[in-house]
């Protein structure tokens, strides 16, 4: 129980710091000073204190927002943090369901608001999911094949014991490429597309509901960075205790900075271009799977 509470606490209250560092980094690329490091916390606090203005057509209200954050936190519990996960028995199917559920919640919220921008954004979110979720699925299946287990704990352990393999490297790379879209960062922030859709699914959101989504995104960022680093890039090996935690934090930061850098130096792609690109990434993940099947 303590581990669960602690993990949720870490995800909720430390993830915004990573976001803050990311914003500082982006400002550096822009030649800006950037917002204070703690700005993401103030943003969430500010949104939580505001009125929740809702579309009169809304049937679901703030429900999808809360469910989405809850699902992402639950998914976070399955991912090994430090050396073990909060819920050690968690497997990849449960994780995929939870992550998928969170994006369904986002789409529902988009549909629920009745705004044409949100509706277009919802369509884009769905199209993006169709091509991005398979990458995650295939990559995780590859890891499962290699480690002969669907449990994250075993997958994370595999490379530490048996060393690396071609299939794991390829899958890891594919997952890294998919991360940009999973986290709605440029050039794939198409469902939100401030320029043409004014925030897409979030166009009509405000106050605490919007805070839940923002918070969810910030948590998602860390959860996905953890999956990537823990299962596919577990190096350096053999660390214990505080060192393991420190290494993990550094790795998550590295992933976040990498994602941030790509975000800063790219314009937004169109949905058709993005889908074309992700078909390539799916193929790449499949190649990884084939390698795993032949034992490489």
């Amino acid at each position, binding site marked *: 129980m303590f581990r669960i509470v602690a993990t949720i606490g870490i995800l909720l209250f430390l993830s915004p710091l990573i976001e803050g560092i990311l914003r500082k980094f982006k400002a550096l690329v822009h030649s800006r000073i950037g917002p204070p490091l703690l700005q993401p916390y103030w943003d969430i606090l500010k949104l939580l204190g505001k009125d929740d203005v809702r579309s009169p057509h809304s049937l679901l209200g703030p429900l999808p927002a809360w469910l989405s954050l809850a699902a992402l936190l639950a998914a976070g519990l399955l991912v090994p943090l430090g050396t073990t996960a909060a819920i050690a028995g968690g497997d990849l199917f449960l994780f995929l369901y939870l992550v998928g559920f969170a994006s369904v919640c986002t789409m529902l919220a988009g549909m629920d608001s009745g705004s044409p921008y949100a509706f277009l954004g919802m369509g884009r979110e769905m199209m993006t999911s169709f091509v991005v979720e398979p990458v995650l699925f295939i990559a995780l299946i590859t890891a499962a094949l290699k480690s002969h287990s669907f449990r994250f704990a075993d997958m994370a352990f595999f490379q530490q014991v048996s060393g690396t393999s071609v299939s794991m490297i390829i899958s890891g790379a594919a997952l890294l490429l998919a991360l940009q879209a999973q986290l709605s960062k*440029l050039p794939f922030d198409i469902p939100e597309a401030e*320029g043409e859709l004014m925030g897409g699914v979030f166009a009509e959101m405000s106050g605490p509901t919007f805070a839940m989504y923002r918070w969810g995104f910030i948590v998602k960022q860390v959860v996905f960075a953890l999956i990537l680093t823990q299962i596919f890039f577990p190096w350096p090996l053999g660390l214990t205790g505080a060192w393991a935690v420190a290494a993990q934090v550094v790795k998550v930061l590295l992933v976040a900075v990498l994602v941030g850098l790509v975000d*800063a130096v790219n*314009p937004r792609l169109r*949905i058709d271009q993005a889908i074309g690109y992700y078909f390539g990434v799916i193929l790449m993940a499949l190649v990884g799977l084939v390698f795993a099947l032949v034992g490489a």
Partner: protein
Amino acid sequence: MTKQDIVQFLKAQLGKGYLRHSEPIPGQVWVEIRPEATVQAVELLHRQTDARYLMSVGSDERELKDRFGVYHLFTFDQQHFFVTLDVSADPKKPRLPSITPVIAGANWSEREIRDLLGVEFDGHPDPRRLVLSDDWPQGVHPLRRDFDYSAKPPSKPENAYPFKDNPPGTTVVAMGPYFPVFEEATYFRLYVEGEQVVDVDYRGFYAHRGIEKLGDASLTYNQIPFIAERICGICGFVHNVSFCKLVEHASGITVPRRADYIRVIMLELERIHSHALWLGVAGHIIGFDTVLMQTWRMREPIMWLCEKLTGNRKTYGMNLIGGVRRDIPKALVPEIRKKIQAMDKEWRAVLDAVKDDTTLRMRLEKVGILTKDQCHEWAAVGPVARAADLPMDARKDHPYCAYDAVDFKVITADSNDVWGRTIVRILETIESFKIVYQSLDALMELPEGDIITEIREDIPAGRIAISAVEAPRGEDVHFLLTGGDNRPYRWRVRCPTYPNLPTVQVMVKGEQVADVPIILGSIDPCFSCTERMEVCDVSTGSIKVYSQEELFNWTKNRRERFETV
């Protein structure tokens, strides 16, 4: 074809429809024709000669000649002259044949004349309101001479704007009237099927300021340059120069050479900052904020430089009729050169970074196509036309100020798309650096202090002048018919966005929703120009903040001082 050839050609072809011609100002040919011959004359010029349509101007001349005058302006770029077709409409029931079926680009001009002067155009394909707001009563035309400039007719809120019907199977996605990537109010109503734009409708002019009316009814020649500069917050100096050139043409005075060069420097500094601003905004529209931040950082020293030279970052207030208000001392020249060289160096780095950026090209290439023929049809100007391989540039075609003495290239591209417009603007900025260097050299040679020619006599009524100045967005055209009371009888401003904005409707059809903002952005729209509104801002001094009231009183006192000069 020379001027004589054109006149002879029209005379021969139009027969009885032709009335007379004159050349009131060298290079500005005036041809009076009968209303019935309008369409034929326009067709002849548009299809059989090198003429390029500029705009149509309407003018209430019931006091002067008992008629409504409508002028269709054309330019012969390669031959460096203007041809104006002058048509009279009946003062009681003004009706004229529409030329929009021949030249699509005349659409807005004719609708504007209809709104503001009440001249009806027979055969106009889209006779909806353009300029007047929806609640403006029918049959009240504010630009008529008998309409007082401060009159406020009662609001008729029941008139809803008749937007086009949805094409079957489409939904409406509204971009505007307020939309994050459009900095000003405009409304593009997109009819979309999934992600594809099937059709589009436009409504704008939400903030029409009636500046022309002010010029015709309330201000004097010496005051107008300052309000002309406030037509646009980005390329205001262009409007200022355009207007000053008009009055200088009409009164026949020569501007001192040093003032010419100072104007060129300010015009080019304005182009440099405007293109840097545009590139940043374009980057922002497609989510590339690094471009926005970096280009605006480079632009900032130019703004400071302008402040040092004129006293203001923008809206320089530098021009007076006959010259400029402030000299650029020779002692400042090295510093200006250094600042420009610094930007020059960084700008070339931007060019290298932009031209090899694959994702950027993916977003910009083959998007927002407007071909050479379509440009001619819609009378598109500036980088939009130059990206369609039309080498038009008022600086070369109708040289003004000192542009006849500086060496620069007209940059063109042949890709017809947003990418072409981007590259044209980036390269054009490099040409601007060159022009500034040359002008600075000239400033070092010319004597300091000789910066203004004063007009001693009154400007006679009934004179006509046209001026074209190349703004960063394209060519800015002003038209003047002088009045007897030290102010214009009719002053018409056609900013470059005015012909370019309607082309967006052509460019976005069949494209994806995601491309609409950047297509619109690619013309570098400037709605405040189109709408000619005055924004009353509270000026912030370093110590004192002026209230609106104080500013108002202050400008009132200023006016008195101008009149005594």
